[in-house]
């Protein structure tokens, strides 16, 4: 279908909207075959003017001007406005072309850099703003070209690409844990919590995560995220103030899945650390090691409270 024919179909529909105060049969009688005539006119380079004027001329020549209400019915006016608005949605095509290019840019950034940056979706290009901008411009140009071309048989391909864009954006919005967390934090929400009755009455509880087998630094992150306090413990030296990051948590108390109130502590058992002086509880590096190979973690709390 030619571009002129598409324009003619769109114009004929607008003319029908202008005639919407007539009966369906009258509209059909007046506009049957109109698309082909308008397309021919456009092929000749004619200016078809406005749909409103066109409809007025059509009515007058057909001897149906008397069918136009002198004072338009309010409902008819409303319906006509709605129909005009729905037809004018197609005028928003340029905005849609830019929007889909933006979505494609974000999806590309997510696919390329999400694992590397760990940023929430839609922030992947923060570290590469110029590259992101260039890609966006290229995709806008591509999108406009696709939008303006006569896609014909490629219509199904374009439709499929829109489905892919839509599904991809939806998965990023709701399927990425990091994005989900970002939305949670940015909206001021806390991690999910529950209030339980009985053993720990009327306190805000958090589920103890499984930190056993993790490095100290990883265990800290995971327990911080659960909004619980913790302390490190070794059977030989008791509570430790300083623990090397590369130490491993070998056990924990309470067990994973237990509910604790806010600020109650999780006891993390770390394996025997020969570098720690149990008396001073500070890191003692071997004489032949370099200072940079061992880093220490300052603990959040050292006191224990019972549930």
């Amino acid at each position, binding site marked *: 279908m030619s571009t002129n024919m598409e324009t003619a179909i769109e114009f004929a529909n607008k003319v029908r909207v202008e005639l919407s105060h007539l009966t369906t049969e009258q509209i059909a009688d007046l506009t*049957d075959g109109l698309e082909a005539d308008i397309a021919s006119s456009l092929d000749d380079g004619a200016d078809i003017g406005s749909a409103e004027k066109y*409809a007025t*001329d*059509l009515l*007058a*020549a057909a001897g149906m001007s008397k069918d136009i209400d002198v004072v338009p019915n309010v409902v008819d006016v409303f319906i006509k406005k709605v129909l005009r608005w729905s037809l004018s949605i197609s005028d928003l095509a340029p905005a849609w072309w830019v929007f889909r290019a933006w979505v494609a840019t974000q999806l590309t950034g997510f696919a390329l850099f999400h694992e590397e940056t760990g940023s929430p979706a839609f922030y992947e290009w923060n570290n590469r703003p110029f590259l992101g901008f260039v890609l966006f411009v290229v995709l806008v140009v591509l999108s406009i070209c696709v939008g303006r071309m006569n896609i014909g048989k490629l219509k199904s391909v374009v439709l499929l690409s829109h489905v892919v864009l839509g599904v991809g954006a939806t998965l990023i919005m709701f399927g990425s844990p990091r994005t989900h967390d970002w939305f949670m934090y940015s909206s001021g929400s806390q991690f999910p919590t529950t209030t339980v009755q009985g053993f720990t009455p009327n306190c805000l509880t958090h589920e103890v995560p499984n930190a056993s087998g993790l490095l100290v630094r990883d265990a800290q992150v995971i327990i911080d995220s659960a909004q619980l306090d913790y302390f490190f413990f070794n059977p030989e030296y008791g509570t430790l103030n300083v623990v090397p990051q590369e130490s491993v948590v070998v056990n924990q108390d309470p067990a994973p899945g237990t509910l604790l109130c806010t600020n109650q502590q999780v006891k993390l058992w770390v394996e025997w650390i020969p570098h720690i002086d149990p008396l001073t509880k500070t890191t003692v590096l071997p004489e032949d090691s370099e200072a940079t190979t061992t880093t220490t973690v300052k603990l959040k709390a050292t006191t224990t409270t019972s549930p």
Partner: protein
Amino acid sequence: MVNSNDESLDRSQLVKGVLDLAVLSALSQEDGYGYDVVRRLRSAGLVDVAEASVYGTLRRLFATGMLTSYVVASDEGPHRKYYGMTPVGRDSIAAQRDQWVAFCEVINTIIKTKEDN
């Protein structure tokens, strides 16, 4: 040739009065679709005739039985609606032509009388 200029309003009124006769005459030799009729009128000199006016006139002449209509399907898009003359239309052309000629003679007589004075 009838062109658009400062007097286009008068001319458009003139065209309105004889559009039925013009459209019927354009279809008297051969059937045609809407824009085809517009082309015939414009090539004959009615360059400023409005397309919608022609299409509306075709619908009205069809409704009054002066024209017949049939649809021709197209592989490339919407169908075309063709119009052709009916016997009633042919009779009407003859009557309208006589009226027009008589009307022109009257007007010419008036104009000549004014010029002579």
